[in-house]
Structures are given as structure tokens and as C-alpha cells.
């Protein structure tokens, strides 16, 4: 014990003697540990941790696959087919519906989920209060019951313990579809409250759940779309379930050849689907952080070896003076452990900060992100790796020396050239590895930066600058029917158009967010028959007011704009659609058929794109519908910075409605830029990691050359005495740096070509192996390596031969 204490004190003193070394090791390791643990903690929360349901492994999700992609089945199809299979213990479903909650605080619109009665039992989550739904509550008339989320219960109802039995007034446009846009409210009895962390897979946290009732209306003749969820029987594998669904699909096809000919029922584990497409960036960052850790370990290994080599003489002396091999090793071990422990603590601190930063930076649509916290296992893992690195490389040189030639090393002052060479090569290859890995990271970051630049310069087909958007939600209590709402919006447009600085103003339906800007509309084109059983083509569908094209700056290339007099039967299509179906004729005056209605084409507009769908596939249909829905997006084009216009617009709207109805106000450019958030997030972190990697790798290059120079001071002196010029020495050291860099760059380029394809889905207008990027990064890295080599080279060139020769 006293020996250990003595070792620690001695170790601290040795580290204190060389604080630069200690600080660099601690910093490098801390950064690597911090980055890794933080990213892994996030990935663990989002990707790896099982979903919070009973036996989540056995829960699968089902959907209909056709050549148009996957989609939820209609309620009718669900009831007819999905429940037949023998491979499931239970099959449940849920839907999504907009409700207006009336009577609590202010009325407001929310998305909530109708669920089949067996859904919550299937997931294995019990209510906190009361009960979940009963099967008979799926029948119309019995369905006015509601289960609240914990959040709604606490935030809106003050966590009232006697809430069961109270009622909630809800209204929904779906409930009233066939009663021509008037909104009846209905009272729902509260029967249960769910626990705090419960939410449905695939869904944003919902405020409440209601029973899923089968119901046809003019809009959904087969019932609304529902999302099926099933629990596999214990003995059934995923493959067996897939095979069973294939058989079922075949039966369905036989029974309904007209509608189901090219549809198949598919399934997958819920966990896979929940995260499909959303974790790519995170996994990528995990890989990048792993690279940073590798680079850091390589670097620290070098630092430790260097240091141990520098202390060879001291250690040899100790051994000659009678220190046992165990004691010497123990001393080295103590020092390594001191350092890595310090690094671990610093890393832990960094991790806490970084996890917060990552969660803050991350675009919001990643599920379970908020649950990310520093994970003990992960921290243990990275700490373990770095401590191991320290131990291994901190003591390795001692091992070797202890082995053989302690006395000799003391006598002659040099180790055998073969050993020196071997170690030099090991150190060199560690530096090469660092350079190669940082090149890969740099290439990745550069590709993303180039993609973002390309996206920012992409021709969108419209002019987003100087456009202000305001999301308006009218309270249904005050504007109970379509007429009132239409009046409000018409008046608003009139008033705003008269304001100074306003070029034009228009309305577009609120669900038409950018990115998922449009709904979809299936249609047919006379003269273009669709083969039996095949689905009708779909186009993006926008409901707009006249002035829309002018406001967004979308040119009408043929025909005319929509006017106040045009209604649902007159449409404007975009060039993509026009080229597809009317390539060799004039589309103006031709018709599309939508559910039996003829839609006459009066104009053709430029195709627009956005960052989420940079390659519009099917084309778009625009129609003018009266602004009768309670929520709309109001668009204003100004002749100036639109942000300056925002207060004036809000004032106008508030004056007209005498209530706060604007829920969001942003410029169109902001909205567009937000759709790039996911890419930007990956880019920023990858860029950060690449930068870190570069710095650490350059410390590696610098450290190695500096060490070599120090080791070779004598040789350099001899060379100078033999006639070497300053520039000869300079060139020799720089040459070694550049040689290491070049080998590293070549290895890195090979690695990058092999690895950057994982970035493909995030790239735009640049290939993963873009030669320009590879060249640029290689040159930049070579130049940086040259700079890192310059200081040691300069120092070498300044060696005074007299002093160096005395050294002996």
C-alpha cells in the first residue's frame, strides 16, 4: 500500500515534470471518450434499446405493398383479411384523426389516435388509472369513451384523481364529413389514463385515444386507412409469418382481382420500421465517432511509447540498481493509470455536455431522442478501451527492455537498430492510420457540405425569397362552419393585398406542409387506360387560392392561372404531368378524370421541387377550392425582407379575428432550410469529428517528427559536420512527414472509396467517390501534414553540430 502510494506520488511528479505530455494525452482521450459515449448514448436510446412494450421482439407491423410503395390498408381490407391468419396471437390496428378539443382552455386542434380495443392489451401496457377500451366500444354509438395520456391529464386537467367519468368535448371534421362541413361536438367519457412514458409506435405523442370504429363515408368508401400491429405466436418466426401473409395475399387477390391484384401484405418487426430511414445519420455518426476513438488511441499509444523510450535510461538505471522487473512495470502502470483516469473523468464531463448538445442539435423527428442520457455501459466501454490503450502502450516498451538488455542499454545508450527500426515502423504506421482515418472523415464531411451547397443552389422552380408564411387555425367554436371561415379568409386576403410592400397573397391548405407539401390524388387520363387490377396513377395535390402561383413565383408556362371563378373542375397541372401524358399534344382543354369527375386543364405550371423530394416523380395537380377549412397557410410575397412585414401581418390577422389564430409565422426560406436540418445535423457533427480527427492526427505527425528529431539530434549534428546544409536537414524531416502523410492519404482514399457510399442517401448532386472532393481533401491533408512537420523540421535544421556532438 505504501509502495502504491509512493508510486502514485512519484508518478504525479513525473507527469508534473512533463505537463505538456499529460495535458495532450488527457485532452485527446477525453475528447474521444466524450464524442463516442455521447453518440453511442443517443444511438442506444434511439436504435438499440427495445421498444417499451411487452415482448417487443414479437410485435410486428403490417402494410400493403404495391408498386406505388407501401401504405396502410383500408379499414375494410383490414377487417376482411388481416385477422384471418393463424400466425398471430392478436391483430390490432389504429388510425390517426384530427380533433378539436372544445371547452378546456382554448379550443385547439390536435392529432389523436383511434385504436382498436385490443391494441393496448397487445402492447402489454396497463393504464395508470381506470381501464382501456372494451370490444363493444368499437361499435358506433358505444364509442364515446376516451383514454387520456399522462401529459394531457397533468397539463390540462391538473392530474385530477377523480377524472374518471368526466367528459371531454371533441369535434372532428371526419365525424362531420357527410354533414357538409359543420362541426358537431360530441361528449366523450374519460375511462382511463395511461402511464407517463406511453406512446404509440410511429406516432407523435398523442393527447388521448378513442375507440377505432368502422365507418364508411363519401370520402373513405372502404373505411379510413388503419395501421395494423400484430403479436406473433411464440413459436412463429418472422419468415413463417411472411410466408403466411404471402398465402393470404394470394387468397385476397383471387377474391378481389379488381382491387387487390398488385397488392401484397407485408410485415416486419416493429422496431425495424419505427426507425426505418431515421437512424442512418446516427449510425453514421457512431461510425465516425469510432474513427475518432481509433485515431485518439493510435495517437496516445505513440505518445506513451515516445515517453517510455525517452525514459529508457532512467528505467535501466533503476534496474541495475536492483529494482525488480515487477516494480518497474508497476511504476509505469501507475503512471498510465493516473493519466487515463484523469482522461476518463474529463471525458465523462464532456459526454454530459455533448449528449445535451446532440439532442439539442438533432432535428426533432427522431423518435425517442429525448430519452437519450449518458449510458453507463457505453461509458465503461470507451473508458475501458482508453485505459487499455494506456496500459498496453504505456508499459510495452518497459516490457521489452525489461526482457533483455537493461544493462546493455545502460552501457551503450542505444538499443539495437533492429528494435529501433521496428518501433519506428510501429509508430509510423500508427500515424499513417490516423491520417487515413481522418481523410475518410474529412471526405465524408466535405461530400455533405458540397451536397448542402448544391441543395441551396438547386433550382426549386419557385422563388422562396421574400415570402412570409402564416399558419392560421380558426377556433371551430367561433367559426363553426365553412361559410364563416371562407368569409374570414376572403376578407383577410383582401385587406392584406392592400397593405404597402405586399406584392401578392394567397392561401394553401394547411396540411400541405412543405416536404409533405401536398396530399395525393389518384386520377386517370382518357386515352391512357390502366390495365385491370393496376392502381391508378397518383399526383401531388394542392388546394390553392388564386394568386398562389404569383405569390410563390411559379411561372405558368402554358394556358392561364386559376381565377376566383374556377372551382374544383378546373385545374392547373405541372410540366412533369403534362410531359408524361400530353407530350405530343396541347394539354390545355384536355381532361383528367378523378373518381368520375372530369377536371379540365386550363394551365401548365413549372414543376417545383423541394429538398425532401428533389426529383418529383409523378407530377402535380393544383385546384382552387374555397377556403372553408379551419386551418390554412397564408402566403404573402413582399418587396422587402418579409420578416419586417411579420408584425404588420399578425396585427391585421388579429384585428380581423379578434383572437390569436396564428400558430406559426415563418419565412418560406426558413421552412425550406428546416427541411435540410437532418442533413445539416449530420454534416455539423461529421464536420466536427473530422476536424477533431484532423487535429489529433496532426498532433500525431508533429509528435512523431518532434520525437524523431529529439532522438536524432546527435545524428543530425554528425550530418551537419559531414556537410549537410540546413535545407538538407529541413527537407529530410519534411520528407518523412510528407511520406507518412502520402501513405496515409493513399490508404485513406482507398478507405473512403470503399466507405463513403454509406453516405449516398444524404448526398445530392455529388457521388460518394467524387474525384474533386477526394483530390481536394488529399491536397488539404498533405498541406496540413507539411505544416505539422515544419516545426520539428525547423528545430532539426537549427541543431548546433557542436552541441549535438558533445551529446555523446
Amino acid at each position, binding site marked *: 500500500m505504501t509502495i502504491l502510494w509512493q508510486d502514485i506520488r512519484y508518478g504525479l511528479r513525473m507527469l508534473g515534470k512533463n505537463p505538456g505530455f499529460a495535458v495532450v494525452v488527457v485532452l485527446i482521450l477525453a475528447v474521444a471518450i466524450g464524442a463516442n459515449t455521447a453518440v453511442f448514448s443517443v444511438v442506444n436510446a434511439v436504435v438499440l434499446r427495445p421498444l417499451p412494450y411487452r415482448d417487443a421482439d414479437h410485435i410486428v407491423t403490417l402494410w400493403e405493398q404495391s408498386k406505388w410503395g407501401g401504405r396502410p390498408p383500408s379499414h375494410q381490407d383490414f377487417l376482411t383479411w388481416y385477422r384471418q391468419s393463424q400466425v398471430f396471437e392478436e391483430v390490432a390496428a389504429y388510425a390517426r384523426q384530427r380533433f378539436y378539443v372544445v371547452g378546456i382552455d382554448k379550443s385547439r386542434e390536435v392529432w389523436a389516435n383511434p385504436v382498436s380495443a385490443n391494441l393496448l392489451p397487445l402492447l402489454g401496457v396497463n393504464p395508470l388509472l381506470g381501464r382501456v377500451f372494451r370490444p363493444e366500444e368499437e361499435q358506433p354509438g358505444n364509442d364515446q369513451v376516451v383514454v387520456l395520456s399522462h401529459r394531457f391529464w397533468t397539463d390540462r386537467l391538473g392530474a385530477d384523481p377523480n377524472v374518471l367519468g368526466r367528459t371531454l368535448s371533441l369535434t372532428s371534421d371526419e365525424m362531420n364529413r357527410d354533414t357538409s362541413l359543420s362541426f358537431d361536438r360530441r361528449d366523450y367519457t374519460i375511462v382511463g389514463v395511461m402511464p407517463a412514458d406511453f406512446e404509440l409506435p410511429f406516432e407523435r405523442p398523442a393527447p388521448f385515444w378513442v375507440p377505432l370504429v368502422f365507418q364508411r363515408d363519401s370520402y373513405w368508401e372502404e373505411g379510413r386507412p388503419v395501421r395494423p400491429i400484430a403479436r406473433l405466436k411464440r413459436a412463429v418466426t418472422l419468415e413463417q409469418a411472411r410466408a403466411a401473409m404471402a398465402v393470404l395475399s394470394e387468397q385476397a387477390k383471387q377474391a378481389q382481382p379488381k382491387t387487390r391484384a398488385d397488392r401484397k401484405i407485408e410485415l416486419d418487426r416493429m422496431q425495424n420500421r419505427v426507425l426505418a430511414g431515421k437512424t442512418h445519420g446516427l449510425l453514421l455518426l457512431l461510425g465516425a465517432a469510432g474513427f475518432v476513438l481509433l485515431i485518439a488511441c493510435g495517437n496516445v499509444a505513440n505518445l506513451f511509447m515516445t515517453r517510455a523510450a525517452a525514459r529508457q535510461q532512467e528505467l535501466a538505471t533503476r534496474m541495475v540498481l536492483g529494482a525488480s522487473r515487477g516494480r518497474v512495470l508497476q511504476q509505469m502502470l501507475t503512471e498510465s493509470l493516473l493519466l487515463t483516469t484523469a482522461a476518463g473523468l474529463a471525458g465523462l464531463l464532456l459526454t454530459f455536455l455533448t449528449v445535451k448538445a446532440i439532442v439539442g442539435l438533432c432535428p426533432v423527428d427522431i423518435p425517442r431522442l429525448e430519452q437519450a442520457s449518458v449510458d453507463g455501459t457505453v461509458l465503461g466501454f470507451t473508458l475501458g478501451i482508453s485505459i487499455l490503450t494506456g496500459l498496453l502502450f504505456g508499459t510495452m516498451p518497459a516490457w521489452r527492455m525489461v526482457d533483455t538488455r537493461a544493462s546493455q542499454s545502460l552501457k*551503450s545508450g*542505444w538499443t*539495437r*537498430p533492429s528494435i*529501433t*527500426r521496428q518501433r519506428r515502423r510501429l509508430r509510423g504506421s500508427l500515424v499513417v492510420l490516423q491520417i487515413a482515418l481522418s481523410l475518410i472523415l474529412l471526405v465524408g464531411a466535405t461530400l455533405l457540405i458540397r451536397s448542402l451547397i448544391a441543395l441551396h443552389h438547386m433550382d426549386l422552380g419557385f422563388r422562396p425569397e421574400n415570402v412570409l408564411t402564416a399558419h392560421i387555425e380558426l377556433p371551430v367554436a367561433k367559426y363553426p362552419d365553412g361559410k364563416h371561415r371562407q368569409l374570414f379568409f376572403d376578407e383577410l386576403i383582401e385587406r392584406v393585398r392592400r397593405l404597402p410592400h405586399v406584392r401578392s397573397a394567397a392561401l394553401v391548405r394547411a396540411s400541405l406542409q412543405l416536404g409533405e407539401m401536398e396530399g395525393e390524388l389518384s386520377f386517370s387520363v382518357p386515352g391512357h387506360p390502366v390495365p385491370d387490377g393496376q392502381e391508378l396513377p397518383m399526383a401531388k395535390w394542392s388546394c390553392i387560392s388564386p394568386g398562389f402561383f404569383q405569390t410563390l413565383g411559379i411561372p405558368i408556362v402554358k394556358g392561364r392561372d386559376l381565377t376566383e371563378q374556377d372551382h374544383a373542375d378546373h385545374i392547373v397541372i405541372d410540366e412533369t404531368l403534362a410531359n408524361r401524358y400530353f407530350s405530343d399534344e396541347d394539354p390545355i382543354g384536355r381532361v383528367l378524370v378523378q373518381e368520375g369527375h372530369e377536371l379540365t386543364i386550363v394551365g401548365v405550371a413549372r414543376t417545383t421541387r423541394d429538398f425532401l423530394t428533389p426529383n418529383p416523380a409523378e407530377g402535380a395537380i393544383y385546384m382552387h377550392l374555397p377556403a372553408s377549412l379551419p386551418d390554412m397557410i397564408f402566403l404573402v410575397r413582399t418587396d422587402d425582407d418579409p420578416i419586417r412585414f411579420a408584425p404588420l401581418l399578425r396585427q391585421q390577422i388579429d384585428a380581423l379575428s379578434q383572437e390569436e389564430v396564428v400558430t406559426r409565422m415563418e419565412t418560406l426560406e426558413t421552412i425550406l432550410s428546416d427541411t435540410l436540418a437532418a442533413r445539416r445535423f449530420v454534416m455539423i457533427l461529421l464536420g466536427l469529428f473530422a476536424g477533431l480527427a484532423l487535429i489529433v492526427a496532426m498532433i500525431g505527425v508533429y509528435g512523431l517528427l518532434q520525437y524523431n528529431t529529439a532522438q536524432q539530434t*546527435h*545524428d543530425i549534428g*554528425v*550530418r*551537419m*559536420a*559531414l*556537410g*549537410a*546544409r*540546413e535545407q*538538407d536537414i529541413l527537407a529530410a524531416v519534411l520528407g518523412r512527414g510528407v511520406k507518412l502523410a502520402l501513405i496515409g492519404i493513399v490508404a485513406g482514399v482507398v478507405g473512403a472509396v470503399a466507405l463513403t457510399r454509406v453516405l449516398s442517401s444524404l448526398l445530392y448532386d455529388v457521388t460518394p467517390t467524387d474525384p474533386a472532393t477526394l483530390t481536394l481533401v488529399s491536397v488539404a491533408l498533405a498541406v496540413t501534414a507539411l505544416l505539422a512537420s515544419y516545426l520539428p523540421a525547423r528545430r532539426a535544421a537549427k541543431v548546433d*553540430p*557542436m552541441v549535438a*556532438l558533445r551529446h*555523446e
Partner: protein
Amino acid sequence: MITLKNVEKCYKTKAGFTYVLRQINLQIAEGEFITIMGPSAAGKSTLLNIVGMLDHDWEGEYTLAGQAVHTLKPKQRQALNRQYVGFVFQAFNLLDSLTVYENLDVPLSYRNVKTSQRAAIVCDTLDRFGIVGKKDLYPSQLSGGQQQLVAIARAVVANPKLILADEPTGNLHSTQGREIMKLFKKLNEEGATIIQVTHNEEYAAYGRRIIQLKDGWMDGEITPDQLPGKAR
């Protein structure tokens, strides 16, 4: 070829200035073979380092081949060194990470010798010193005597006009030592100026003038005949 006027060298130590060379006045003509003798710490190596222009920190006047060295900048002195000097260090100073062959190649690589000629010159020198068989070995794999041979070979490989040899025969067997001396003599006859430091009277006798140093002062100059051993 060499003129030293009042050359002095001192080190600053805690106790003040310690002079290691005092008022050295020396004239050496081209083609001379000079021996410097003196007890340990007399300043022999120091003097050789100054003449070889490895040491820049001294006072007095030094002219080499008509160039006033004391007026030259370090870079110019280095150039002069490259042009004239071949140096045999007291402590060999072979480059441990290079083979014998590579060690011999080093001076040539700094002297604008064509690569094609370099190989020929190195091989020739290896042959002359009888160390062809050792060319791929590292210095640490050689005996002390062999290392010394390589050190001498390296000093003469670039065919210098001025050879400075600090105890070149210290570690050699007497026959080998004699061989080296014969080689120096031959080089001297071919025109090289040689200054050697030695404690061995037999080898000292190869020089035509013997300069004696003591405590940094010049302590007289004798001819080989006046060596105590010869007088007996």
C-alpha cells in the same frame, strides 16, 4: 593554406570564464602533414573543431585558403567546410541507423556528386579500406576498430583537401594503425593537407611538424626527430 592568429576559446561556467585555447598562432601550408599532441583536456579536439569550422564560437583570426573565416557567416563557413574538410571524430560518430555503405554515401549526398558516380566512389573507398564485406552491416554490429575504419573512410570519401583526424587510430591494432598512417601519407602525397591528433609517438612521427598543446597554450613545436622516443 591555414593561418591562425591569436585564436582563443573560452567557456562560460559558473566559476567564470574558463579558457580552453589561448593565443593560438599557427601557419600551415598546403600539402603539410601536421600532428597535434598534448595531454588530455589540453584543447586538441577544440582546436580541430575550430579549424574544421564546426565551432563558430571563438575569437581571433582564421584564414583558410585565402578566405577570412572569422568574417564569414555560419552558412558560408559551412560551405567552406563542405568544400575542403574531411573530419574523423574522436568518438567515430557513425550514423547508427545507416549501414556502412550508407554511412559512406552521406558526405557525397551533400556534395552535388552525381548518383551514378557516388556508387562507384563508395565502392572504391570500401575496397581501399578492406571493408567491402561489411558494407551491409550496421555500426553496432562492428567492432570498435572496424567502426574507426569506417569513420576514416567516411572522412576521406569525398576526397577532401583538408583532412582533420581526431585520434584516428585510438582503437586500432598497431598493424591496422600503420595501414591508416600509410594511407594518410599517400593522401598527403597526393596533395591533401592533414592535421591529426594522436597520443602515439610512432604515428605522430608521420607528421612533418608536431605541435604540442598544454592547458590551451601552444607548448612548442618539434620535428619527428625530436620526439622523445626517437631521441633514445
